[in-house]
C-alpha cells in the first residue's frame, strides 16, 4: 500500500526512550509517528522499578507533579542474604525526598501511558496495536518501516523497541546475542495496603525504600531488588542466562527461594501477588553497546543496550529518557542540514557523551566482569552474615577477635589473597 502521508521520523516503541524522542521532535514541529505494538503504551511493560529523577527532570521539568510516580525513594539498602540471616547497609536520606528528588519507584504500565500522552500532546501521532516487522532498506540505508503489507517511509527511523530489538540487528548494527550477554529478570508485584507498606518500611508521606539484594541465588550470577510502590511491592531477581543453564536452575525457583527467606518473607507477608512477569536485560555494559546509528537510523534506550549496573544502582530508565532526547536532538541537527546519513547522525554519540551516558558506562566498564567472579554472589554474602552473626552472639565460651572470626569463616571458601584481589577489583570497577 502506498503511503498517503510522509512522516519526518518514525519512532518504534512507545516506552521511555521512544516517547521521549517523539515528544522532543514533535515539540519542534516535526511530523512524528510513534508506533507501539501493545494495545496501549505500557501494555507490554512489566517493569516496576526505580527511575532516577534528575535526567528526566531535564526533559520533563518537575515531571513528578503530574506523572504517575509511586514513591520518592529516601531509604536505600544493600542486603547481603545468608542462609537464615541478612546483613543490611542502609542509607536514610530525607534530603533525597525533596525536589528535584533522586529517584522514584514507578509502575511502567502507568508511567509509559503518561509519557506517550506527552508525546501526543506535543503533536506526535501515536499508533498502538501495530508491530513493525522490517526496515525498508535501500543500498544499505534505512528508508522506512514495514508492518504487514504496509510500507511507510521517513527521513529517520528511531528504534526504541527495547531489549529484544530486532531492528538494530536488521539495520546491521549488531549480531545475534550470546547467552552470556543476556540476563533474565523476573518480577512479582505484590499488593499490600499503603499503610502496611509505610509501617513495614518505616516510610511515610509518599516516601519509599529500595533494596538491592545480594546472594542467595544458588550460585547463579545475579541479584535481586525490592522496591516499594504506593500500595504494592516490586520483588524481582535478575540472573545471567548462561549461568542458569550451567547450574540447571530455573529463574522462578530463585524468586520462590527469596520469598521464603526470613528477611524477605516478613516484608511481603500477607501480600497478594497481582502480577508475575519476565524480561530480558542486557548487563554487559559499554562492551555490549552496538553501533548506535547508521544511515537514516538511530537506536535508543534498551534497544541500544544502555544500562549501568554499578552494583549499587541499576540504571536503565533514566538512560532511556536521556538517550531518547539525545536521539531526537541529533535528528533535529540533521534536519537543519537535511542530511540524514550516518555521519550527519553521528552527533548522537557526542550528545550521549554530553549527557554523561556513554562516559558513565565507560567509567563502569569493569563492573560487568565483576559478575563473572562467583565469590561475590556465593561466598561473600554468606560470609558477611555468618561473621556478623558470630560477632553479635554472646556465648559462654572464650571470645575471639573479629579478624580471627573472619579468617575462620573464610577457611575453605576464599583465601586471603582472593579477597585482596577481589577488593582491588571492586576498587577499580567502582
Amino acid at each position, binding site marked *: *500500500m502506498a*503511503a*498517503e*502521508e510522509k512522516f519526518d521520523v518514525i519512532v518504534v516503541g512507545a516506552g521511555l526512550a521512544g516517547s521521549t524522542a517523539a515528544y522532543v521532535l514533535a515539540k519542534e514541529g516535526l511530523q512524528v*509517528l510513534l*508506533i507501539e505494538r501493545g494495545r496501549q503504551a505500557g501494555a507490554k511493560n512489566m517493569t516496576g522499578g526505580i527511575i532516577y529523577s534528575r535526567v528526566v527532570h531535564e526533559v520533563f521539568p518537575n515531571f513528578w507533579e503530574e506523572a504517575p510516580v509511586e514513591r520518592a525513594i529516601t531509604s536505600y539498602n544493600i542486603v547481603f542474604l545468608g542462609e537464615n540471616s541478612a546483613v543490611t547497609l542502609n542509607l536514610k536520606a530525607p534530603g533525597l525526598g525533596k525536589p528535584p528528588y533522586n529517584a522514584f519507584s514507578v509502575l511502567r504500565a502507568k508511567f509509559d501511558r503518561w509519557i506517550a500522552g506527552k508525546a501526543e500532546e506535543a503533536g506526535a*501521532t501515536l*499508533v498502538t*496495536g*501495530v508491530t513493525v516487522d522490517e526496515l525498508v532498506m535501500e543500498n544499505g540505508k534505512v528508508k522506512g518501516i514495514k*508492518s*504487514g*503489507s*504496509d510500507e*511507510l517511509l521517513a527521513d529517520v527511523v528511531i528504534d526504541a523497541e527495547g531489549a529484544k530489538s530486532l531492528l538494530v540487528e536488521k539495520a546491521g548494527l549488531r549480531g545475534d546475542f550470546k547467552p552470556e550477554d543476556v540476563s533474565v529478570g523476573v518480577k512479582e508485584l505484590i499488593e499490600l495496603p499503603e499503610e502496611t507498606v509505610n509501617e513495614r518500611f518505616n516510610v511515610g508521606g509518599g516516601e519509599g525504600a529500595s533494596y538491592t539484594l545480594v546472594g542467595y541465588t544458588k550460585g547463579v550470577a545475579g541479584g535481586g531488588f525490592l522496591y516499594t510502590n504506593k500500595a504494592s511491592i516490586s520483588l524481582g531477581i535478575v540472573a545471567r542466562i548462561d549461568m542458569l543453564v550451567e547450574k540447571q536452575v530455573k529463574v522462578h525457583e530463585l524468586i520462590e527461594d527469596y520469598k521464603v527467606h526470613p528477611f524477605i518473607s516478613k516484608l511481603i507477608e500477607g501480600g497478594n501477588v497481582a502480577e508475575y512477569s519476565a524480561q530480558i536485560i542486557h548487563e554487559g555494559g559499554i562492551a555490549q553497546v552496538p553501533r548506535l546509528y547508521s544511515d537514516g537510523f538511530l537506536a535508543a534506550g534498551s534497544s541500544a543496550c544502555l544500562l549501568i549496573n554499578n552494583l549499587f544502582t541499576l540504571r536503565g530508565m533514566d538512560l532511556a529518557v536521556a538517550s531518547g532526547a539525545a536521539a531526537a536532538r541529533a535528528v533535529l541537527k540533521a534536519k537543519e542540514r537535511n542530511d540524514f546519513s550516518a555521519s550527519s547522525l553521528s552527533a548522537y554519540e557526542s550528545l550521549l557523551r554530553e549527557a554523561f551516558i556513554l562516559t558513565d558506562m565507560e567509567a563502569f566498564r569493569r563492573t560487568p566482569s565483576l559478575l563473572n567472579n562467583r565469590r561475590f554472589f556465593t561466598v561473600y554474602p554468606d560470609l558477611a552474615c555468618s561473621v556478623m552473626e558470630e560477632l553479635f552472639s554472646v556465648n559462654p565460651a572464650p571470645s575471639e577477635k573479629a579478624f580471627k572470626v573472619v579468617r575462620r569463616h573464610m577457611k575453605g571458601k576464599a583465601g586471603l589473597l582472593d579477597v585482596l584481589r577481589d577488593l582491588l577489583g571492586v576498587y577499580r570497577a567502582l
Partner: protein
Amino acid sequence: MEIIVCAKYALDVAEIKIDPSGKPLLDGVPRRVSDIDKNAMEAAVNIKEKQGGTIKVVCFGPASAKEGLKELLAMGADEAYLVEDPSGGMLDTAATVEALAAAIQKIGSFDLILCGEATTDGYTGQVGPRLAGKLGIPQITYARNLNVEGNSVTAERDLEDAYETVKAPTPVLVSVTREINVPRIPSLMAILKASKKPMTIWKLEDLGLSKEKLEQVSTLQTVDLQGFAVERKRVVIKDKPVEEAVQELVSYLMKEKALGV
C-alpha cells in the same frame, strides 16, 4: 448499502477484580469495544467490500469511547457518532435505546443496522431487539451468517440445536453472533487513515433528549452485584510415566466434565 453499526465501549471484564466480600470493584476498570460489536463491524465491512456503500458507527457511552470508535474506524467504518452518556453508565437498556434511536434518526437514512447479539459486560441482549422495535423495523437476531441481495437480507440464525434461515426486506436490524466472522486487526495504514475520518460527538440535548428524560425511562435498577472467584483446582500430576500421567489427566478432566463427554 447504507449500514449503521451500534457499538458499546464496554467494561473490560477480564480486568474486574473482586473484593473479599464478593463485590466486584468497578471503579477505574478499563474499557474496550465489546467483542461481539467488532463481529458486527466486520460483517458490515465484508458487505461494503462486496457491494460498496457506507458504514456509520454509533455509540452511547462515556467520552473515553472515542478511543474505541477510533478502532472501529480503523476496521473500516467511514464515520463515527458518539452520544455522550452523562450518567457514568448507570442507565438501563431502555435509555440506551432512546439515545441510539434518536442518534440514528438524526443521521437519517439507512438500509441495515448491525449489532452484536449482546455486550460482553452487561450481556442483556436487549438493545438490538428493542432498537428495532423503537424504530419500527424488522429484526433478525443471532445471525451466524448474513447475505445481502438487492433490497433484502438473508441470515442463518443460531438456535443452539438448530439453524434457521430467514429473510427480511430492508431496512432491517440484524444482531450477529461471535461465530459469524473473525474481526480484523487494523493495519498501520488503516489506523493512520482512521485518524482523519469524521467523528461527531453529540450531547443528549443535541438529540432533543436530556439526562432527566433518560432517567425517567430507565426504570430497571441494579439491586445487587455479586462476583464469585473461581478457585484453581491445584491438581498436579507428577513423577509418573507419561502414559500413566495422561490417563490420569484424562480421567480427571472427564470426572470434571471438562471434555464435553
